[in-house]
């Protein structure tokens, strides 16, 4: 975070924390929606069937695995982008 004073960094961190809470609830809601839509199809009773319950549990695990994997690809991509921008800047400064 070059370019920010300590006070600015603190202010930013507080805002980021708030944002993360909001972000987390958004992702959580999306996950509930997605796994419900994918797994729940039996409305002859109000209790989850064994099949539905297992499906939801696997849906959550699979979602965590896939978002973990995509997160790694995303970070690699960002690191690469930053490197390219730095090289561009340096060649311009020469």
């Amino acid at each position, binding site marked *: 975070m070059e370019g920010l004073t300590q006070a600015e960094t603190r202010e930013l961190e507080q805002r980021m924390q*708030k944002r993360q*809470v*909001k*972000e*987390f*609830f958004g*992702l*959580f*809601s999306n*996950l*509930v*929606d997605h*796994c*419900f*839509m994918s*797994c*729940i*199809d039996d*409305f*002859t*009773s*109000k*209790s*989850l069937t064994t099949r*539905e*319950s297992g499906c*939801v*549990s696997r849906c*959550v695990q699979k979602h*965590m695995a*896939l*978002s*973990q994997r*995509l*997160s790694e690809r*995303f970070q690699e991509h960002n690191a690469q982008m930053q490197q390219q921008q730095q090289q561009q800047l340096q060649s311009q400064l020469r």
Partner: protein
Amino acid sequence: MSFLGFGRPQQSSAEKIAAVEAEMRLLTEMANRLTKTCQKKCVPNDYREAELNKGESVCLDRCAAKFFDVHMKISEQLQQESQNRGGGSGLGF
């Protein structure tokens, strides 16, 4: 008495208000998702009648009950997962 710990002592005004607001936002969000999801599951899109019929009404009630169960179940699973990993949300990003 709150999902988000509203009522903890020694919070500032702003913190207390933010906590209540966050909880209300969360509940509204959940209510909207419930409506959207159970509408898709229980009510066909052709709208030949203006009233909910018996079958649709029963389906909505069961859908709501299952939605709360799934919500709770996933919430517990994420907490479990997060404890196993020693922190983090487990949602990836």
